[in-house]
């Protein structure tokens, strides 16, 4: 657990901010990791005198704590201690001391987020926690359940927003977004706001939604309290720092060193909010090593598909997930490509360098940012020209970084090269198993991404990492990506309708394994689509067993290329609409997983059509019904 040293120390800081754990701080002995970490920070502020009313050890300890505390933390701490005595009063049997400062009203703060896969959401959650500890009266709002008018009531506003599709807002934030952009948007005169945008520089419209919301808030009269920050997939550290800073900005000027009494509820929640339930133990920053227990291409010989069933065995405490969650994989690049890259920039095939970049840098993505840096670095006009108009889109459509270097060759130093590269981001895979069926294992279903362009065979980093560069018994670094918005119904009796094409079937294997293990009685119905029945029926034997045992109640399949006309899942949905509607009437939850462009859009449209027909109304009526289902968490999507 070496990787836990920092978080361990952080615990001391965070926990030091809640009543109970303060006690721990005074009595408990720090673990070596903490000490070693604290050592590095001592002696910048004046330290407690040796004669302070504490044991030498405590003095020493308090010093460490003070040294490494931020002004905010110190102001909070003094306020807290004052509050502590105020609250405990005489009962402590001490000469009563007046509070160091008078209690003051907490600062109102509205934190609003729009999130698809949970990143912006978890940042918002963290911000809320930090804020309430810093005497903010913080409320948190999901754009999914709100109307833009809530913004008008806000005084201080922090927005966490991601971008999806091709520059679109997250699915569940679309209405809010449209409302905000539309004429009906509220006036925001005097609202102080700050926007943090999440995105992926691999996409042409990097952080598009965040950018537009930031502009819009200003246009509506809002006052930009802190500059927007656009973050790539490696957002965690920068986001935390930005949140800290921004909270500082929103903290009334006269706080700071002069203390504010903190209202501590000794009986209530504040006491036990140390462990963070929605923070998984293993994250992209703190991955866990898994052994590849099985690695099988599920497609039969002669298939046009290549879909790998990957069984990851994790022997580590606290490794857990729910069906519906995703597993993050930290892949490694194809060393051959890494070598090509170093060759292309005149660094030959420097073994240690290629190893380094193939392990930890993104060497495939051709982003505006990289091209921009490369242009500046090399001072090449022709490279810079790629940034004009739609030149970038054209050039990068089916090219990668190596093509840029080959097309516009320049010699770079190892340092210049690595500075150009972003860290290699993890890839998410819907977990295809249940821990109840496979203890200590997570199964993934990975579609191999392969294509050829400009005379080069190309492969997706993570998918070919499994398909080509890993074998059974090797290891992979993984983490858990919880997905609150894609989970089995709490009630095992609730019917579920599972719609997925290709790898989109993955979570449903986990769902059925889970329900079988729980002996849940709820009906289940799978709609599965792929190309050819004979070779592409992923997990066919398992579905057959579950149909036989009753764990799966219904199955409908659509194989697009088995017959002259194309047949897709949405057609099966339409054919079975009568029975579908009766399931929905019985409270069924509907799940859609898989490719957004290839399937989810059409499934969505078909569901609207079906609901419209049943409502004897137009498509609008159908849309409304589907929205109701979404709001009731009965229509959940996991699309990519």
């Amino acid at each position, binding site marked *: 657990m070496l990787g836990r040293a920092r978080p361990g120390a952080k615990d001391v800081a965070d926990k030091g901010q809640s009543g109970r754990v303060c006690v721990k701080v005074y009595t408990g002995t720090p673990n070596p990791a903490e000490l070693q970490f604290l050592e590095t920070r001592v002696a910048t502020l004046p330290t407690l005198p040796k004669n302070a009313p504490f044991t030498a050890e405590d003095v020493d300890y308090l010093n460490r704590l003070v040294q490494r505390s931020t002004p905010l933390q110190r102001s909070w701490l003094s306020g807290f201690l004052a509050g502590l005595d105020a609250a405990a009063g005489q009962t402590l049997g001490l000469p009563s001391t007046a509070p160091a400062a008078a209690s003051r009203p907490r600062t109102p703060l509205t934190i609003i987020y729009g999130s698809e896969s949970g990143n912006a959401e978890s940042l918002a959650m963290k911000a809320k926690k930090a804020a309430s500890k810093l005497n903010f009266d913080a409320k948190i709002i999901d754009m999914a359940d709100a109307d833009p008018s809530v913004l008008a009531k806000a005084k201080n506003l922090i927005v966490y927003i991601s971008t999806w599709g091709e520059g679109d807002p997250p699915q569940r934030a679309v209405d809010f977004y449209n409302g905000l952009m539309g004429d009906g948007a509220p006036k925001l005169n005097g609202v102080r706001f700050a926007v943090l945008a999440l995105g992926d520089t691999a996409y042409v419209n990097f952080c598009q939604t965040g950018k537009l919301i930031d502009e819009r808030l200003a246009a509506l009269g809002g006052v930009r309290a802190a500059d927007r920050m656009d973050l790539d997939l490696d957002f965690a550290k920068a986001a935390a720092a930005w949140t800290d800073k921004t909270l500082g900005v929103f903290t009334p000027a006269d706080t700071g060193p002069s203390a504010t009494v903190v209202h501590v509820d000794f009986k209530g929640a504040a006491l036990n909010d140390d462990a963070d339930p929605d923070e998984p133990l293993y994250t992209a920053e703190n991955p866990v090593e898994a052994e590849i227990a099985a690695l*099988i291409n599920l497609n039969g010989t002669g298939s046009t598909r290549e879909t790998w069933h990957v069984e990851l065995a994790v022997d580590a405490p606290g490794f857990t997930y729910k069906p519906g969650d995703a597993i993050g994989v930290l892949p490694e690049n194809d060393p051959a490509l890494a070598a090509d890259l170093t060759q292309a920039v005149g660094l030959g095939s420097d073994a240690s360098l290629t190893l380094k970049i193939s392990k930890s840098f993104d060497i495939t993505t051709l982003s505006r940012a990289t091209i921009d840096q490369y242009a500046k670095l090399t001072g090449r006009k022709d490279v810079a020209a790629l940034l004009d108009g739609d030149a970038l889109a054209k050039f990068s459509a089916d090219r990668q970084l190596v093509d840029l270097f080959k097309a516009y060759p320049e010699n770079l130093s190892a340092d210049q090269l690595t500075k150009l590269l972003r860290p290699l981001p993890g890839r998410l895979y819907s977990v295809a198993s249940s821990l109840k069926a496979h203890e200590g294992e997570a199964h993934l279903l990975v579609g191999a991404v392969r294509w050829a362009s400009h005379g080069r065979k190309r492969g997706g980093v993570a998918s070919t990492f499994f398909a080509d560069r890993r074998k059974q018994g090797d290891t992979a670094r993984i983490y858990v990506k919880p997905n609150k918005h894609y989970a089995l119904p709490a009630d095992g009796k609730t019917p579920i309708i599972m719609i997925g094409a290709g790898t989109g079937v993955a979570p449903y294997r986990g769902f059925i394994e889970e329900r079988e293990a729980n002996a849940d009685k709820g009906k289940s119905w799978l709609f599965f689509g792929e190309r050819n029945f004979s070779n592409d029926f992923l997990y066919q034997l398992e579905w057959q067993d579950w149909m036989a045992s009753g764990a799966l109640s219904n199955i409908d399949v659509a194989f697009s290329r088995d017959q002259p006309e194309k047949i897709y899942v949405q057609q099966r949905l339409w054919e079975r609409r009568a029975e579908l509607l009766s399931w929905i009437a019985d409270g069924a939850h509907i799940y859609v997983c898989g490719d957004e462009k290839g399937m989810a859009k059409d499934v969505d449209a078909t569901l609207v059509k079906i609901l419209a027909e049943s409502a004897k109304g137009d498509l609008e009526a159908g849309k409304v019904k589907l929205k109701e289902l979404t709001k009731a968490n009965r229509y959940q999507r996991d699309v990519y």
Partner: protein
Amino acid sequence: MTDTKPDKRAKNEIIKENSRLLRGGIADGLSNAVTGAIEEDDTQLLKFHGSYMQDDRDVRGERAKKKLEKAFSFMIRLRIPGGVVSPKQWIALDDIASTYANHTLRLTTRATFQYHGIIKSNLKRSMQAINAACLDTIAACGDVNRNVMSAANPFLSKAHGTAYDLAKNISDHLLPKTGAYHEIWLDGEKKIPKPASAAAENEPLYGPHYLPRKFKIVIAVPPDNDVDIFAHDAGFIAVVEKGEVVGWNVTVGGGMGMTHGETDTFPRTADVLGFCTTEQAVEVGEKIMTVQRDWGNRELRKNARLKYTMERVGVATYRAEVEKRLGYKLGPARPFKFNYTGDRIGWHETTDGKAADKKWHLTLYVENGRIKDLPGSTHRESYREIAELGICDFVLTSNQNLILANIAAKNKSKIEDILKKHGVSIATSSGLRRNAMACVALPTCGLALAESERFLPDLITSLEDVLDAAGLKNDDIMLRMTGCPNGCARPYLAEIGFVGRNPGLYNLYLGAAHDGTRLSKLYAQDVGRDKIIALLTPILKRYAKDRKTGEHFGDFVIRAGIVKATPAGNKFHDDVKLAG
């Protein structure tokens, strides 16, 4: 059938009995989307509809690991009595091959088409497409009278035409009458509401149990014995006088299939039962079949073919019963003479009729009957292109070959040009190849013990070197191979016969008569490619050197004492002297 004593009947008898005249659970099986298979029992019934459930044996090993069931698919066999299709039909059939099957058409040893690799979800569509082309698959397989073959090319002479008509009449007359076929495949109205009994509808000729086993009828026009008349349960040999068919010699009790190591199973050449007129022929065929229906063994399927009934009761008794049912006696058999069981590859002109009406017919050798485009030889495309011109009919032969028939003299070159363009040559590389047949076997045939269709062409290529050296390149020598002892390519009637025992290993049979009248004899057991060449090389050399003029290879090996002659089926396993 339902009395108290223990039911010793074969499982299939009970399946048929409970099937509501061949319906069983087929329809339900087709609609079960989670599997590409249908119920085991229903696969037995499906045969009567002209289809077999199979699986791709090449990939069996990997499927379970990939969490996939066997790669199930279906074979469809058409019923085309006389084996003639129009150009329009050819185009339709060719389309079906690309749309639903494995992009090949397979000409069978019984002059019809087979499709392979049709998945369950396309089975009904395929059946409907076939029927849309005015063809069907009813009773192409199963315990019924199968497709009736007649001497290839009904257009060659008046007599051939008469033989063709008889084939059609018999086939139609002996068709099952159940509505199951239309109900399941053609959405015809349900004749019997499930689960009612079959009584409502009846099978006048067959009854609810149909026949004990498959039943095959063929019609020959001497001197050609292309249909291998003695290999079938029943046959009619045209007796021709001045170009007119005056009647038929009737044969009964032929069959090929046997089981390795079970000497009570054996191939058998048919006996001649007697003579009948054309007016009587259909009825005679029916009575021969119904006697077998009533006398055939329904407890032991291995022993259920007519040939074993014949062994049990003898020709005389069988004839007497047939005549009793006919109400008249069959005439004494007329003399007949065959000379060849192969096809005469190349151009032929109609042999009789007015000069003005004469047409040309081109017999093409199709390797193992597999119509499949290969680089350099796109014969499937060539036939398609020819069909689109609409200038000929298509006739299938009992040797897996194809005849382009009824071609006007002025169109001959057109046809030849198209063939040339697609790299299809009329001449074959050797007489051995020209007379070679291999059954389907792997990967589709569930009973195959060894390769056949996919192996024979190479083997012949190796043997051709030997033939070259011996100067036998152009001699007609009958060679046939099957992947198991069932004998689908009639190997026991070939001068050189290979029958698969194990992967890569074959039993080698020699000494069958060139005219199809005498069975062969086992000469070597479990021999692979090299051993086969080693064994045959000296024999072929001797044949080239020592044969009498006109002496066929099959007769030579007997005269030379290489194998003993097999006078009758029940002597097939006798006098075997294996080569060292």
